[in-house]
């Protein structure tokens, strides 16, 4: 009975915390009044694009579904990421129009930094803009091993502007975009309709990230 009570409490706390993802932080207007600031843009190494399985499914279901979708996974793993490599330039071009001194850090971070103090020693800058591709490819809802509808094109990007002198996050935005597929989706080997939905998800995610940062400026 005690074990049941503990498990029930843990489940309830977990249920509550699943709604507690970090909120977006809008960039304050005062940021644009500083004409002498310099920012370094860094990107985090991208994950391998793939199929994200969502919904009610256990470990065995993941394994079964992965086996069934192996051709799709192989296709998604080769998805073009040139747009992600160009994203720092998109930000830098717009920042320079606002007379912000911008540099792009040449190396990709292996993972999101858990400690901003170590990042200051590594990059030697006052403010850092961290761009991260959280997920890219397709997502599909499952109930066990039963797919609940067609997959969707999927792209999730985050951006964080951090003041490394104070470790304060000045701006945070998460763009998690799912785009429906028009027409048939299961079209190996090139999956043209799915690819079009993925490109649309990327376009919307990039637009939201840029528009959130430069909103009103």
């Amino acid at each position, binding site marked *: *009975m005690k074990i049941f*009570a503990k498990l*029930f*409490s843990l489940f*309830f706390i977990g*249920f*509550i915390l*699943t*709604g*507690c993802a970090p*909120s*977006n932080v809008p960039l304050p207007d005062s940021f644009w009044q500083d004409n002498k600031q310099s920012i370094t843009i860094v990107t985090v190494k991208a994950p391998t694009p793939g199929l994200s399985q969502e919904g009610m499914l256990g470990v065995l279901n993941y394994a079964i579904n992965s086996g069934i979708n192996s051709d799709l996974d192989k296709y998604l793993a080769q998805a073009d990421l040139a747009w992600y490599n160009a994203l720092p330039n998109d930000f830098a071009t717009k920042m320079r129009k606002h007379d912000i001194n911008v540099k792009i850090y040449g190396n990709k971070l292996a993972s999101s930094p858990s400690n901003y103090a170590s990042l200051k020693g590594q990059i030697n800058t006052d403010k850092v803009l961290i761009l991260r591709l959280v997920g890219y490819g397709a997502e599909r809802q499952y109930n066990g091993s039963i797919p609940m509808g067609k997959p969707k094109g999927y792209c999730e990007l985050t951006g964080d502007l951090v003041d490394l002198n104070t470790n304060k996050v000045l701006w945070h935005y998460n763009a998690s975009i799912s785009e429906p597929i028009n027409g048939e989706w299961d079209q190996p080997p090139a999956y043209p309709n799915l690819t079009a939905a993925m490109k649309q998800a990327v376009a*919307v995610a990039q*637009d*939201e990230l840029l*528009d*959130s940062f*430069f*909103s*009103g*400026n």
Partner: protein
Amino acid sequence: MKKVYYLFLCSMMLTLAACTPPAQQVMPPLTYSNQIAFHDSQKADLYWQTGSQVSSEAPPTQDYNDGIGGMIINSVVNNEMRSAHPGDFTYTYGKAQQAVFMTSLKNTLVEQHAFKDVELITDPKAAKPQDVLITVNFKETRVLGHEKNYQIILDTELTIKNGNKPPFKRTYLVESKDSSVFSTKSFKDQQTDVSQQLLNKVIAGMTQWYTQGH
């Protein structure tokens, strides 16, 4: 004591599950409480563009205590209700909401004499060369799922064209606040919140256009 504890946890879960705001509501007209800091002698034509709209649907309700037969009946009833009244289950920031926003913007500009005259137009070619053409493009409107209490995100672009001068452009990304799982904010309130933010930003953008030499 244990029974009280279990009852409390169960009631909290039921309360949270019941906190789904109804979908089919459109926000009331917006108001602008500040003073607009400019008065232009030209007429303004307001034009509005609609982009992509991403909606969310309310999840199907299911009572697992009814047994398999009950679950099948509930599923059939749910599907029938959704087919007959799709608006009651679909959360969107669509043309109805955008129409309220544009009308509110027009009324605010008229009441505060921001321009000599303000007219909502449906074709940008109808704008005369001597008029100021103000375009609000709702590039993307997105309503997140029930786990985010149907939070609304608007990605919009304001363009102001005045004669042969280069167009003034600003983008605004606004999102409704208070998207936590505990939120009791109605969907109508979410629409009002995000629309009010956008109205304030668009008018600030117009003020910026005017002070930069319009």
